[in-house]
């Protein structure tokens, strides 16, 4: 058998291109169904775990899939805003811990998640270096963000401006990096976290500038008018684009704090009953909706699995077609090699040896293709982006 394997290997080596094509076809036919199976199972597990760790999510009425995917995985969809007052109202019954989040901004392309300290406690996040964000203008980086951007504690990061050509909008904000989170292999690794007030600065709801009387004296060209106690400045008045310990005190808000915008509210009820009561109360009477992420992700994955069943049929057809193609190639190859096989017989090989020679070639092709497919699956599992990113 060793001699037959040797001859088979030499023949495959000699016909490199044909062998490579056959191996590629076989590997692909093996890789696609196995990879899709493993990837979907992996995504199901990962998505399910994160959804299960967040009992309820409240948000503006609309797509429950968008609400869950954005709130849990920071998918880049713009959610209708929730008023801060509405989030505060959720605390009234005392049924659940309320964790507001704002997801409307990005920094260097990464999601900027504005939230409270309870978020870190509930997600089990802790700083690998530095500390968690305590003050407006501070940020903490997810482990992968820090690695990919090469940033660390003490450095700074600019937010991405939402409107490049509208000077009335808040400019990009320079944020101080005060911490880097330990890696959790979750969407938190890919996010930048800030305090809620920082998000409102980016909204333009909070802003800071020099003391009005001093500015009016130093830059009278920016004063459009004076009325009793008020001074009206030109929009050309440059607001601070960095929050420092020196200017932090100058940041303020004009208007109703209850109107400050949020994206969603994560809810961690005391128990199942409290959660059900809260969900029922809010869904019946409020402008908000409360959803159970595990149910939403379950529905989403059920849909994915329905599609997968259809795709499985396609994979089966592909496998069948590949097998038929392989059979045809072998048949034609055997005919083309009739003289070679006859020579082998004359030289003392049995008819079975000729068959073993062809079988060994097939076996080697299948073996190499299987190894290649296995390697590709491993690479796919290691390197393919998170499902939410490609959705």
């Amino acid at each position, binding site marked *: 058998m060793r*001699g037959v394997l040797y001859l088979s290997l*030499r023949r495959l080596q*000699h016909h490199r291109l044909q062998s490579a094509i056959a191996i590629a076809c076989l590997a692909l036919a093996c890789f696609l169904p196995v990879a899709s199976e493993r990837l979907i199972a992996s995504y199901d597990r990962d998505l399910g775990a994160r959804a299960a760790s967040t009992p309820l999510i409240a948000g503006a009425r609309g797509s429950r899939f968008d609400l869950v995917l954005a709130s849990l995985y920071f998918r880049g969809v713009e959610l209708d805003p929730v008023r801060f007052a509405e989030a505060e109202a959720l605390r009234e019954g005392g049924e659940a811990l309320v964790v507001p989040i704002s997801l409307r901004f990005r920094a260097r392309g990464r999601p900027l998640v504005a939230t409270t300290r309870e978020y870190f406690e509930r997600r089990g996040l802790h700083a690998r270096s530095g500390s968690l964000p305590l003050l407006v203008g501070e940020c903490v980086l997810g482990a992968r963000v820090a690695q990919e951007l090469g940033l660390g504690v003490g450095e700074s990061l600019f937010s991405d401006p939402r409107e490049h050509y509208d000077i009335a909008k808040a400019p990009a904000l320079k944020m101080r990096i005060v911490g880097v989170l330990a890696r959790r292999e979750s969407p938190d690794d890919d996010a930048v976290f800030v305090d809620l007030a920082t998000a409102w600065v980016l909204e333009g709801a909070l802003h800071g500038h020099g003391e009005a009387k001093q500015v009016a004296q130093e830059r009278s060209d920016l004063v459009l008018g004076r009325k009793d106690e008020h001074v009206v400045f030109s929009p050309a008045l440059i607001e601070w684009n960095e929050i420092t310990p020196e200017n932090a005190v100058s940041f303020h808000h004009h208007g109703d704090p209850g109107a400050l915008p949020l994206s969603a509210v994560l809810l961690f009820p005391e128990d199942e009953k409290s959660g059900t009561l809260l969900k029922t109360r809010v869904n019946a009477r409020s402008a908000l909706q409360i959803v159970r992420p595990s149910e939403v992700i379950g529905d989403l994955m059920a849909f994915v699995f329905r599609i997968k069943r259809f795709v499985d049929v396609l994979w089966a057809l592909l496998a069948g077609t590949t097998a038929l193609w392989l059979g045809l190639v072998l048949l034609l190859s055997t005919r083309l090699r009739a003289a070679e096989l006859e*020579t082998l017989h004359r*030289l003392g*090989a049995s008819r079975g040896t000729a068959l073993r020679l062809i079988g060994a070639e097939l076996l080697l092709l299948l073996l190499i293709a299987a190894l290649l497919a296995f390697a590709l699956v491993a690479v796919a599992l290691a390197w393919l982006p998170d499902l939410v990113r490609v959705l």
Partner: protein
Amino acid sequence: MSASPRATDAPIAAPPIAALRGVRFAYPGGSFALELAALELARGERVALIGPSGSGKTTLAELIAGIRSPQAGTVQLCGVELTALGEAERRALRIAKVGFVFQRFELFEYLSALDNILLPYHLNRALALDRAARERARELAAAVGVEQLLSRIPSRLSQGERQRVALCRALIAEPELVIADEPTGNLDPSSSARALDLLIEQVERRGATLLVITHDHGLLGRFERVIDLRALVAGEGRPAVVTPR
């Protein structure tokens, strides 16, 4: 060469390497039948087998080598009755006793010249592919002048070089009988003569019997005996044996 045929009843002193008696072989469908009353090949003899296309030269060689079995009669190879053996035993005997040189050499393009020479060892567990076998292959290659070409594949060899590699393959297992099926069929006359000289020289050096199937009557003078199968075609039942001058 004498044109007058005569019966093959000349006395043979040593036990023959091959002996056929009352052999009848027909292919399925009955398009061709070979009937042979008696034929013997002496040890160390150089024999040419001639005859028109379709007269059964290759079939006769295959019967002698045990590749095919006759429907009637007996075939002995090295004193062993082939018709009494099974396929596997016949094959084992063929591997041990018979070497082949084919008209188109039938070298395998995906193997180096060295691997082509060692092919019988790759195919048969009975032959041990050890250092001695590889050394013997190199010695054979050196003897026919292709020792520098052993790493090349056949398409990178000239016609004559391929012929030499094929000869080495036929001799590697040290056979007692070498059957060459039109080994010079693809060569020009001068190359044919040189190739046949080389074949005869190497076979004689090893004391083996040589049976050459050929259409080239110009080469018959190099053989001790010529067997003409035209008489079989004519239905005389015995091949004409011609002793070249």
